[in-house]
C-alpha cells in the first residue's frame, strides 16, 4: 500500500511545484504587509545602507572633474604655450588629416586680485567643444565688438548683459553669459575667432585616423582622455563597493537575529502550515521569501531615499565640485550592485532561521512555545585556527617591506578576511561565558546574560556583527594613529585669520611674514609677479603692505640646507628657515633658552628623538654666490622649543646661527 500511495502521488510534483511556491510566497508577502513594523529595524538598516551607498558613491565618483574634461568630445588634444608658429603648423597638419577645433586663450589679471581670466576664442559649440561651453543667458558673440563672459568675470568686473566692457584693448558689448560645464572655475571672456591677438595658450582638439598620430606627435605633445585619467585601481567605485560589501555583511549578521526572532514569533502559524501539509521546503520558503521581500523593499526604499538625497544635494555639490553634474550621472553599477547585495544579504540572513525552524517538531510549533534551546557542543578549534592564522598573516604583513608598512598587502587582506570567520565562529563561546559571569550579577543582569547565553542563535550573529564593527573601528583607529603619530608625517594647524604670509618666490626660497599681533603663525600666499622683482624691491613692497595692515613684519631667510629623514614608512624632506635673532625675538625666544650646541630648533614634538635625520647643505666657504657642493651631517642636534610657531607653513623648524657658521651654510636672503 505504501507503494500504491507513492505511485498515486507521482502525478503531481511532490512539493506542489510552482502553485505551492506561489501560495507560500503570497502568504509571506501578506505577512510582511501586516507585520512590517516588526521588521522595521532590518528594513531601516538596509534602506540606510543602500541610500548611503548610492549617495556616497555618487558624490565620490562625481567629485573629480570628468574624465574628458578639457577634451570635449575630441579623442586627442594638444596644447602650445609659447611657439605660435609651431601651433599654426600643427593645426594645418591636423586639418589635412582630419577635424580640428582651435581654442585660443590670452591670460589677463583681474585688477586688485591675484586671480586671472582668459580672453578666449572658441567656436560655439564647434565640432568637439560642446561639453566645454554652454550658454547660460543671452547669445554667443557674433562680431568683434561682442563678448560673452562667465559669471566669475561678470561679478569681478560688475558686468551685465548689454553693458560695454573694454577687454583685449577693444570695447565690446556683453551679449551673453556662458560657462564651462566641466570646470565652473574656468573664468573667461568669449570672443569670436581672430580677436585673441596674442594668445598665451593654443589648444587644438582634434580627431584624425589613429595611424596618423605618430606623424603628428613629432614636436607636439598629444594627450588623450585615457592618458590623463588616474590609473589608481582604488577608484571611488571600488572603495564604495568594498564599503558596501562590509556594510551588508554587518547588516546580514544583525538581521539573522532579527529574522530568528520573527520566525519564532510566527512559530504557531508555521505549525498550522505544516499541519495542513506544507513540506520543509515550503516552510523554509516562507521565512526566506519574507527575507527576500524585506531585502527588495529595503533596496527600493534605499534607491528612492538615495536618489532623493542626490537630487537635493546635487546643486550645492556642483558648486563645491566646480563642474556641472548630470542628474543621472550616478555610478549605476554600484547602484545596481547595492540593491542586489541588499536583497542577497536579507535572503541569506533569513536562510539560517528558515533552516532552523524546520527542525522544530510540528506539535511544538502548533503550541506556539519556543523550543527549548538545544545543547550544541561545537569545537572552538576552527575559530581558533582562523584567528591564529589571521594574526600570523597580519603579523607577517606588518613585518614585510622592512616593517615600514609598505608591503604585504595580500597578507593583510587575507588576514582581515580570516579574522571575520574567526570572530563569527568564536562569538557563541564568548556568549556562553556571559552565562557563567552572570552567576554573581544582580537578577536583572543575570536574566539578560543567561538569555544571551541560552539563545545563542539569536544573539551570536549580533555579537559577531558588533565584533566586526568594533574590529573595523579598531583597524581605522590603529591605521590613523600609525599614520598621524609619525613625527615625520607632521600636520600642524593653519594660520589664524589675522596672519598673512607673503612669499617672494615659490617656497622654499624664502618669504616675508606679515604678522599683525606679534604672535602666531604664517600663511603662504604665492604671487607669481614677484618672481621678476629683486629682493630689495620685494622687501620694500612687503614693508608697505605690513605698514598698510598695521602689522608686524618678520623676514624669513632660507638657508641652502634642508632636513630629511625616513621613519615608519614615511619620509620627509622639510623646509627649514634660519633662526635669525629677529625671528627668535618675534616669537619671544631668548638666547638663553637655546642650547649653544643645537643645530636645529623646532616646535615639532618628537622630532628631536628621531634618529637617522640628515641635514644636507651647500657651503658658502668659497665665497658669495659660489656655493660648493657642500655636505651633510647625520643626526644633527635638534632642540625642541614650543615657543616657535607650530603651523605647517610657519617657521616651525629653524637652523641655528651656530650651525650656519659651523657648516658655513649660505643664505637665501629675501629681505
Amino acid at each position: 500500500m505504501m507503494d500504491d500511495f507513492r505511485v498515486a502521488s507521482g502525478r503531481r510534483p511532490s512539493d506542489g511545484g510552482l502553485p505551492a511556491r506561489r501560495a507560500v510566497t503570497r502568504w509571506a508577502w501578506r505577512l510582511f504587509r501586516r507585520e512590517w513594523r516588526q521588521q522595521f529595524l532590518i528594513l531601516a538598516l538596509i534602506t540606510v545602507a543602500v541610500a548611503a551607498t548610492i549617495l556616497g558613491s555618487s558624490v565620490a565618483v562625481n567629485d573629480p572633474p570628468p574624465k574628458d574634461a578639457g577634451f570635449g568630445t575630441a579623442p586627442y588634444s594638444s596644447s602650445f604655450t609659447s611657439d605660435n608658429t609651431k601651433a599654426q603648423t600643427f593645426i594645418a597638419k591636423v586639418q589635412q588629416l582630419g577635424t580640428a577645433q582651435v581654442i585660443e586663450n590670452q591670460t589677463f589679471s583681474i585688477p586688485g586680485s591675484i586671480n586671472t581670466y582668459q580672453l578666449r576664442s572658441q567656436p560655439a559649440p564647434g565640432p568637439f567643444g560642446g561639453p566645454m561651453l554652454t550658454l547660460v543667458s543671452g547669445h554667443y558673440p557674433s562680431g568683434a565688438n561682442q563678448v560673452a563672459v562667465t559669471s566669475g568675470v561678470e561679478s569681478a568686473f560688475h558686468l551685465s548683459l548689454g553693458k560695454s566692457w573694454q577687454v583685449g584693448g577693444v570695447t565690446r558689448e556683453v551679449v551673453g553669459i556662458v560657462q564651462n560645464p566641466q570646470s565652473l572655475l574656468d573664468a573667461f571672456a568669449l570672443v569670436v575667432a581672430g580677436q585673441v591677438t596674442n594668445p598665451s595658450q593654443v589648444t587644438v582638439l582634434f580627431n584624425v585616423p589613429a595611424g596618423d598620430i605618430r606623424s603628428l606627435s613629432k614636436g607636439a605633445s598629444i594627450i588623450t582622455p585615457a592618458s590623463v585619467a588616474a590609473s589608481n585601481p582604488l577608484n571611488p567605485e571600488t572603495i564604495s563597493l568594498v564599503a558596501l560589501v562590509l556594510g551588508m555583511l554587518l547588516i546580514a549578521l544583525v538581521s539573522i537575529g532579527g529574522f530568528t526572532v520573527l520566525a519564532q514569533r510566527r512559530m504557531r502559524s508555521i505549525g498550522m502550515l505544516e499541519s495542513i501539509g506544507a513540506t520543509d521546503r515550503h516552510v523554509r520558503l516562507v521565512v526566506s521569501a519574507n527575507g527576500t521581500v524585506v531585502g527588495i523593499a529595503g533596496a527600493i526604499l534605499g534607491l528612492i531615499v538615495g536618489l532623493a538625497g542626490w537630487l537635493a544635494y546635487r546643486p550645492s555639490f556642483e558648486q563645491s565640485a566646480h563642474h556641472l553634474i548630470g542628474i543621472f550621472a550616478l555610478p549605476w553599477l554600484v547602484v545596481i550592485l547595492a540593491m542586489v547585495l541588499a536583497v542577497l544579504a536579507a535572503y541569506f540572513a533569513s536562510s539560517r532561521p528558515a533552516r532552523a525552524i524546520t527542525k522544530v517538531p510540528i506539535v511544538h510549533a502548533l503550541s506556539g512555545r519556543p523550543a527549548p534551546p538545544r545543547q550544541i557542543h561545537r569545537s572552538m578549534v576552527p575559530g581558533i585556527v582562523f584567528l591564529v592564522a589571521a594574526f600570523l598573516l597580519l603579523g607577517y604583513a606588518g613585518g614585510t617591506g622592512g616593517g615600514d608598512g609598505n608591503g604585504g598587502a595580500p597578507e593583510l587582506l587575507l588576514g582581515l578576511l580570516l579574522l571575520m570567520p574567526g570572530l563569527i565562529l568564536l562569538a557563541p563561546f564568548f556568549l556562553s561565558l556571559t552565562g557563567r559571569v552572570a552567576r554573581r550579577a544582580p537578577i536583572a543582569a543575570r536574566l539578560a546574560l543567561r538569555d544571551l547565553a541560552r539563545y545563542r542563535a539569536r544573539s551570536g550573529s549580533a555579537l559577531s556583527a558588533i565584533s566586526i564593527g568594533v574590529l573595523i573601528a579598531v583597524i581605522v583607529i590603529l591605521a590613523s594613529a600609525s599614520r598621524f603619530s609619525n613625527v615625520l608625517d607632521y600636520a600642524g594647524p593653519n594660520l589664524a585669520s589675522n596672519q598673512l604670509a607673503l612669499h617672494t618666490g615659490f617656497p622654499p626660497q624664502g618669504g616675508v611674514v606679515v604678522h599683525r599681533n606679534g604672535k602666531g603663525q604664517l600663511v603662504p600666499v604665492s604671487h607669481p609677479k614677484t618672481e621678476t622683482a629683486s629682493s630689495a624691491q620685494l622687501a620694500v613692497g612687503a614693508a608697505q603692505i605690513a605698514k598698510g595692515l598695521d602689522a608686524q613684519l618678520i623676514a624669513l631667510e632660507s638657508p641652502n640646507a634642508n632636513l630629511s629623514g625616513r621613519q615608519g614608512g614615511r619620509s620627509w624632506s622639510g623646509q627649514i628657515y634660519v633662526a635669525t635673532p629677529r625671528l627668535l625675538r618675534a616669537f619671544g625666544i631668548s638666547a638663553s633658552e637655546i642650547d649653544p650646541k643645537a643645530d636645529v630648533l623646532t616646535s615639532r614634538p618628537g622630532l628631536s628623538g628621531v634618529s637617522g635625520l640628515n641635514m644636507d647643505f651647500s657651503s658658502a666657504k668659497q665665497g658669495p654666490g659660489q656655493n660648493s657642493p657642500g655636505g651633510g651631517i647625520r643626526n644633527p642636534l635638534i632642540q625642541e622649543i614650543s615657543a616657535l610657531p607650530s603651523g605647517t607653513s610657519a617657521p616651525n623648524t629653524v637652523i641655528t646661527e651656530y650651525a650656519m657658521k659651523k657648516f658655513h651654510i649660505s643664505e637665501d636672503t629675501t629681505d
Partner: protein
Amino acid sequence: MSMLELRHVSKSYGEGANEVDAISDIDLSVERGSLVAIMGPSGSGKSTLLTIAGSLEEPTTGEVSIDGVRLSGMSRNDKARLRRRSVGYVFQDFNLLAGLTAVENVSLPLELDGTSMKKARTKGLAALEGLGLGDRAENYPDQLSGGERQRVAIARAVVGDRSLLLADEPSGALDSVNGEAVMRMILAACHGGVAAVVVTHDAKLASWADRVVFLRDGRAVDETLPPPTPEELLNPNTANPA
C-alpha cells in the same frame, strides 16, 4: 479496510526518571464514513492520540496506518504530502492563517499540492458554499465570528478528496448552538465517506458519534458501540458483544 488504524501505539515523553507515558498500547480502527469520538479527562492523552493519528507526531512504539499506508519509515515530506491529500485537521482554536482570506485558507492545501490557484479557488469556494459561507469567502479570519472560523476550518479539512478528518475539541471555543452546527457538519462529511475522529469533553456532542472511546491515563478504558441493528440482533455471529 480501515481508513485509520492504530496498533499497540504508545507515546512517552522525557527520558529516564522524567519519562512520562502519554498513551499506552492503544488500538483503534476507524472505518470510512464512521465518526469516532474520544473522551477523557485532561491529560488522558486524547490530543496526543490525535496528533499521532494525523502524522504530526511519531509514536514511541506501535504502528499507525492511514488508508492502508503505514506511517513508520515515511519521510517528513511524504507525511506532509499524505496530510495535504488525505488528512484534514480541525483545531479548537481554528488555526486559520492570518493574512489569508477564508477562501485562500481553504484552498491552501490544494495549492500546496500543486493544484493551480484558479482550480484550488473554485474548489475552496465550493467547499465554503457547502457550509453556508460563500458570502464570507473574501473575509480575513479576524473578520469572522468564532463559528464562522470553525466552519472555514472544517471546509479546509474536507476540501479536495480528504478521507480522514481529525478534530481536536472543535466546539471547545463555541457556544452550544455553534458547537452542534459544527458537529452536524462533521457528521455530514462522514455521510460523504469521510472517516472522522473527534476529541471532545462534551458527552452530548459525543453522542453523535458511531463509537466513543474513553481514555484515562493514556489507556483506552472503555468503548461504547452503536446499538445493534435488527439484522445484527437476529444473527448471533455478528451480534454486538457489548
